[in-house]
Every structure is written in C-alpha cells, then in structure tokens.
C-alpha cells in the first residue's frame, strides 16, 4: 500500500538556522506514529513545516502526501487535502467567533471537494455532536476563538476542530502539555474515537504519558534534526525508563 505521508531527506531552516537536518519518515493509512525527543530537537519545527508555516523554509528534500507534492501547496490547501495540525500553542483570536471560524473552515473544505455549503441545521448538529465528544461546554463555542480559554480548554478545542474537519493526517504537537490527567483522558479518547483505518495520526510528545492512552504503532526518536532511532511501541517505555542519553551518546 502506498504511503499516506512520505518524507525524504527534509531540511528546514528558521532565521538562518538549520533545524531539520535530513528527516526520513513514512506513514501509512491507519497508523499512529509517535515522535519523541528532547527539547530543541526539531519536533515542533517538523509539525510546522508539514502544516506550511511560512516562518520556516525548506531547503532540501521532499514531502509527499497522498502522492501529491505537499511542499508546493499553500497552508490552506494542505488543510483541505486533509492535513491537520493541533497546535502546541493555539492562538487567541478576539473578535472571530468559534462558530463563524468553524463554518468558514468546513465550507472551504467542502468547496475544495466541489460540495455545496453545509446547511445551518446540519452545521449546528455537527457542532453539537463533536462538542459532546470532547465534553466541551456549549458556552465555549459561542466565544471568540480560544479567547480566555484555559490551557486545557484550548487543547480540547484543537481536538474539537479536528473532529469537525476529519483530517487524513492529524499532527498532534505536544497536545498533552498543560493538560491535567482528566483532560488528557478526554482528549486522548477523542483522538482514539476519531481514528479509523483511513487516516493516520502523528503524535509529537515529550513524554510517554500520552502514549498510555493513544497507542502508537511506531515510535521515532528525533534528535538534532534527524530521526536517530525508530522502533516498536516498547521503545517509548524504554525512553521513559532510560531517558534519551543512551541514544544520543551511545
């Protein structure tokens, strides 16, 4: 089966500093991959580059998504093709209501697929259904995007958006950071419920903790801009016990 995501020798810089130094990664439909690594190893840069953040510049390498050249696409087209980034630090956008934001996002996606705009009643039904999946307060979706949300609410809101948009590849960038154990469970169970044989998840995390709830098929260790080790789920446990040092300074 062809890979959903195929990254070859990816190099990227930010402010003239090379952060990614030759990443190779293959993700197939239905798989969950975890990318772990110490601070500053390039985990968040990888997720930003995949989502198309203009602050990062790709200098070498290729990324193919569903057979298409991802790096050629604008961020909005990547999203419409089915890439979803759950932000490590979701942005507060005062004045843009969650409802208008989500309606615009859903309709842009439908337009891309030549589908008619969603009806008002269908949209409200979808919102309610996904909100309940994440146990989100109905008040939250009536507010401005992330404005005044607590850290946990922001992360729930990311997964709520993921549920609304049903991506083919969800990239969860440190989704567990800032979550207490209850919120972590809700978020993880949301991700698990949304995951099917047709999509893939890339979990980027510091800690093994999240992987107790979202079970990966593969675990990769990113260090200094490169994947230095890939393995089975028990690699995560080993990292939890031994730290990264044995890999970095073997």
């Amino acid at each position, binding site marked *: 089966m062809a890979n959903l995501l195929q990254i070859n020798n990816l190099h990227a810089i930010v402010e003239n500093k090379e952060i990614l130094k030759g990443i190779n990664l293959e993700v197939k439909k239905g798989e969950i991959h975890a990318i772990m690594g110490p601070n500053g190893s390039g985990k968040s840069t990888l997720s930003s580059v995949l989502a198309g953040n203009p602050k990062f510049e790709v200098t070498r390498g290729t990324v193919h998504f569903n057979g298409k050249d991802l790096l050629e696409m604008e961020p909005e087209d990547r999203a*419409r093709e089915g890439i979803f980034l759950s932000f490590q630090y979701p942005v507060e956008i005062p004045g*843009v209501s969650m409802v208008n934001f989500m309606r615009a996002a859903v309709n*842009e996606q439908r337009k891309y697929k030549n589908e008619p705009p969603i009806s008002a009643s269908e949209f409200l039904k979808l919102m309610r259904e996904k909100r309940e999946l994440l146990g989100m307060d109905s008040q939250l979706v009536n507010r401005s995007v992330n404005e005044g949300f607590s850290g946990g609410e922001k992360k729930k809101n990311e997964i709520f958006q993921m549920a609304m948009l049903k991506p083919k590849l969800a990239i969860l960038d440190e989704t567990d950071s800032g979550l207490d154990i209850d919120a972590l469970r809700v978020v993880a169970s949301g991700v698990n419920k949304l995951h099917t044989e047709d999509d893939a998840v890339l979990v980027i995390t510091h800690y093994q903790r999240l992987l107790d709830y979202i079970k990966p098929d593969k675990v990769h260790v990113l260090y200094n801009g490169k994947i230095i080790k890939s393995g089975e789920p028990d690699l995560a446990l080993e990292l939890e016990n031994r730290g990264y040092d044995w890999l970095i300074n073997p």
Partner: protein
Amino acid sequence: MVEKQYIDLFEQYRRELDDNSVEGLNRHRDKAFEVFSKIGFPTSKDEDYKYSNIVDAFDDDLGLNLRNIPIPVNPYDAFKCDVPNLSSHVFFLINDRYYRDAQNNEPLPETVFVGSLQDFSQQYPDVFAKHYAQIADYSDNGVVAYNTMFAQDGFVVYVPKNVQIEKPLQLINILRGGVDLNVNRRILIIAEENAQVKLLVCDHAVDDVHFVVTQVTEIFADKSAQIDYYELEENSVKVTRLTSLFSEQMENSNVVTSGITLHNGYTRNNYRFRLLGEHAEAHVGGLAICDKKQHVDNYVFVDHAVPNCLSNELFKNVLDEQATGAFCGRILVEKDAQKTLAYQTNRNLCISPDARIYSKPQLEIYADDVKCSHGLTTGQLDEDALFYLRARGIDKEEARLLLMVAFTRDVLDLIRIDSLQERLEHLINKRFRGELLRCGNCNVCKYFD
C-alpha cells in the same frame, strides 16, 4: 489669507444670512465673527492640528447657500439608506436645512420635539438659549466660530424630563449641490432629567462636487439622562468633513457616542466631553476604514471636572494604500475629580507599507486618587493568527478579512442597538471586500473608480 474671502462674504451678506434664519441663531453671529476674524482657521502649525491641514479645503471657490435657495431633492429617491429599517422615525437634513416633508413617521410622545433648529428656537426660546452655542464653546476654535457665524438651521432632539424614546431616531444628512459647496450645519440634543434617546446620524454626499462641511453637535445630558449618539460616515472622496461634538453631562447621566467612517475623503472629528455631575459615564468609540488617499483625524478631549465619573475611549483605524490617520486623546482630571476612572485605547492596523498613523495620548491628572490608563498599538495583522486560520483551510485573503473584521468588533460592541451592530458588521465586511467601493448606494463615487 484664506479667511479673508469668508470675512468679506459675511460682512457683505450679513443681511441675507439673518433674513434666512431666526433671531436665536442670528444673535451669536457677531461674537463668532469677532473670534473668527481674530484667530481664523487652525493650521497645521497648531499642535492639535499638526496632522490635518484643513485650511486648504477652504481655499477652493466654494458656494454658500445663504439665501436658502431651495434645493430640489426628494431624499427618498436621492438615495437608499445603508441602514434601512432601523427606525420608524427618519429625518433629513438637506445640506444644512431641515427637510420638512419627511413621510410615514410614527408619532413621538407629544412633549418631545424633533425637528428644525429654527422652529425649536421659536417654540422653546428658553431651552434653546440655554444650550445653543453655549455647550459648543467657540472662543478658541476657528472652525466652531466659523460654523456659528454661518449656521442658519439644523436638527434638534429635545426630550423632556422622564420621557424615554424607545426606538432609535435616525437623521440622514444629505449633501446635494451643483457647484462646490460649503455647508455649515448644527445638531442639538437635549435630554432632561431621566430622559432617554438614541440617535443614528448617517452622513451622505450624493453629488459629484467638492463639499466642505462643518458640523457642530451639542449634547446635553441632564441628571440620570441617557443619550446614544452614533454617526456613520459614507461620503465621497470629494468631501471634507469637519465635525465638532460637544457634550456636557450631569449627575448619573450616561452618554455613548460612536463615529464610524466607512467611506470618506478628508475627515477631522473633534470631541469634547465634560463630566460635570458625579457618577456620569461617557463611552466614546470611533472606527475608520480608509484607503486611497483618505484621511481621518480624531481629536478627543475628556474633562473630568468632578469626582466619581467614568470615561472610556476606544478608537480604531484600519488604513490601507496611502491612507493617513491621526488620533489625539487628551484626558484632563481636575483637582477635585477624585475616584475618576478614565480609560483610553487607540489601536491601528496599517495594511500597506504606505499607510500612516500618528497617535498621541495626553493625560493631565491633578487629582491623586484616580485610575487612568492609555494604550496605543499600531501594527499589521497578527501572522500567527493568520497562519492558524489558514491551517484550518481558510484561504489567505479570507483569513485576512476575518481578522480585519474581528479587529473592528469591540468598537461595534459599544453600540447599544443590536440591529445596528449587525448591520455595521455586514457593511464593514463589504467594505473590506471592496464591495462598498463607493459610499453606500449613491451614484457619486463611481466617477472616481
């Protein structure tokens, strides 16, 4: 000297001026003339007018309709308001004159007066004398003095004690003329003790000539009165608009004003709020969306004369292309005005590298137990927010529009008429999309595209 032609004109046509107005207005002309002859128009050498050169506009050969030659216009045909169905009480000023044939208005409470300034001065001479040209101090401002010299009519809302008008009133100012024209109009709003009124003023040019407009608005809110005063400017690029709003508030009164410029040429708005009774509140909003070479300058002076009052200013500008803007906010807290709360915020978005904004807070505080703050930011759209929206599939242009509309949101939130808020959001959306290239539904601006 630019002023000379107007000084000569005044002396030469004094008789016509008086004959086509009424004693109440005429009695102020001499004194105003004296002031104007002495100080003239402010120039960009005056600190408060540093970023607005208003004199040049008067250099043109402008006509003044001092003899009140009737201007044939049916305001219902001339233009379709951009804020329809807001009110069942709609009034018009054609240039500076009150339009007497307004149709289909629902009756207002009998004791309320809404209509011509001339009529009001005759029907309520005492109330008129107490307020007209009293709130609007012209001793140190050449534009206000000029307006007082030439003003012959205007619009009045007078709401007596304990009367509350629930539905908003709407005044539509129509600028009409076959030649370049100077128009000097007045608005007077009086709410007596515990009275309430809301007024929306829409400003609109319908002819393709250069209009230079001065407008002096006087607002008096007596004890526990509540006045909402909203202005929507949709003028052509050929209009120079100089407004001066003066507001005086007594104990427990509450005044909200908001000036929204959706389309304009050259705009200078002066605001002066005086809080004269304890526990009075003034909420002052302003929003301008400018592009081309449009210019907007807001000058706000809030005077806290007594303790325990609150003032809150929020002014925002979105400037594109070669537009320029200025904001100056002066807050004076007098010595006895303890427990004052005075807040001021000015935020600006410069969309293009050529757009310019000049902003200056001025706080003068002579009391020691007060809370005052000012905040000022100028910048571009938030790149992180832009990326966040794009990462959800919203295209770049649409995301920019969403953020620009969002930027204006809190100014609209100050408006206490829900339907007007919604309508304005819609119009602002259209404006940013370039679908409101010209001022609303009139036919003038098409000549300039």
